[in-house]
């Protein structure tokens, strides 16, 4: 597998996630100094504890237009690669969620992302080059009870990336959606403890980070405006076990 990342300017949205930290480590090993965003002070602390001063940290809250605007006005390096790992969890039966929560959830996970991406596209357009990877979830395709808001916001975000890929291909900006199955991190990790039969299909953060890195290489860029499922057969298992799916 060719793993040469030719350009500089690697920005990880949601950089304090476990996958973000793993990805940053791989980039540092390859002599790249990524830019990692965090939405909270706890996220910043996690990045600093795990990676020290080797990475650049920036606060970015997708629910705030001011935060997005401030980010772009202070952006002092060309971003060539965007890896989008930012996504809040929301678990509730569809008809149980509080109105206010529904509104704020879509504001930060869909509307805020759309505004952020609009400006990121314009930023990349200056150099007529860009690679965007959106890390999605099999939940965008197979919805289990309680995942309606999470799954629908993932699906909407996937559509944003597809649209960018289709519109901006003539200007050298390509996109890819990477749909993950279960990952040994965060919520996925606790779910695996409750459902040990899924252990064999679980992915590690390092495996996901390696895949993301590949999709940022020249060969990986051949995959464009589409989605790739990385789940070790998890979605097939879902169908077979009738755990969900549509």
């Amino acid at each position, binding site marked *: 597998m060719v793993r040469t990342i030719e350009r500089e300017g690697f920005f990880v949205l949601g950089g304090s996630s476990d996958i973000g930290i793993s990805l940053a480590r791989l980039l540092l090993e390859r002599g790249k100094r990524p830019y990692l965003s965090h939405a909270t002070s706890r996220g910043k602390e996690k990045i600093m504890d795990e990676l020290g001063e080797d990475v650049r940290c920036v606060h970015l809250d997708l629910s705030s237009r001011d935060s997005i605007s401030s980010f772009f006005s202070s952006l002092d390096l060309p971003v060539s690669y965007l890896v989008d790992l930012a996504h809040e969890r929301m678990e509730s039966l569809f008809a149980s969620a509080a109105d206010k929560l529904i509104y704020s959830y879509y504001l930060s996970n869909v509307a805020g992302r759309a505004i952020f991406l609009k400006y990121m596209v*314009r930023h990349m357009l200056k150099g007529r080059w860009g690679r965007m990877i959106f890390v999605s979830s099999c939940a965008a395709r197979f919805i289990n009870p309680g995942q309606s808001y999470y799954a629908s916001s993932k699906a909407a975000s996937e559509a944003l990336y597809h649209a960018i890929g289709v519109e901006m291909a003539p200007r050298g900006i390509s996109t890819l959606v990477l749909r993950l199955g279960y990952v040994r991190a965060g919520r996925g990790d606790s779910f695996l403890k409750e459902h040990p039969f899924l252990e064999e299909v679980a992915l590690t953060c390092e495996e996901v980070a390696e895949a993301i890195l590949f999709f940022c290489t020249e060969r990986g860029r051949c995959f464009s405006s589409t989605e790739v499922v990385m789940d070790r057969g998890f979605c097939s298992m879902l169908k077979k076990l009738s755990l969900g799916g549509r």
Partner: protein
Amino acid sequence: MDRGEILVKIRDILGEILDISPDEIYPSSYMIRDLKVESIDLLEMAVALNSVFGIDVDEDMAFLKQLRLVVERAKEEERDRGVALREAFPHLGPERIEEILSEMEDGPVLKVGDVVAYVEWELEKS
């Protein structure tokens, strides 16, 4: 920055985007009819105008995107179309507004000179 300097920069921007010589671009050139500019070119142009002139570009205004809508709405509301256009596109002079109204049926009316006028108007504001 005067209108001539703005025009030079805009011709350079358009020349690079469209991969043509700036010498082939005139204030009277129709962007879409003559230069075959597409919507993605306008987006790239807006980004370049922002970068070169340091202005926040209102693409609807700069590229007269809502022009037909403004005219239709004026017609529905039985308002003077010229007045409605002057309100929507304050960077355009009365003569240009009259010209636009007379040539609307012939196709997209946006000219390079309209973008120059928009940039000049934005720079004067700031």
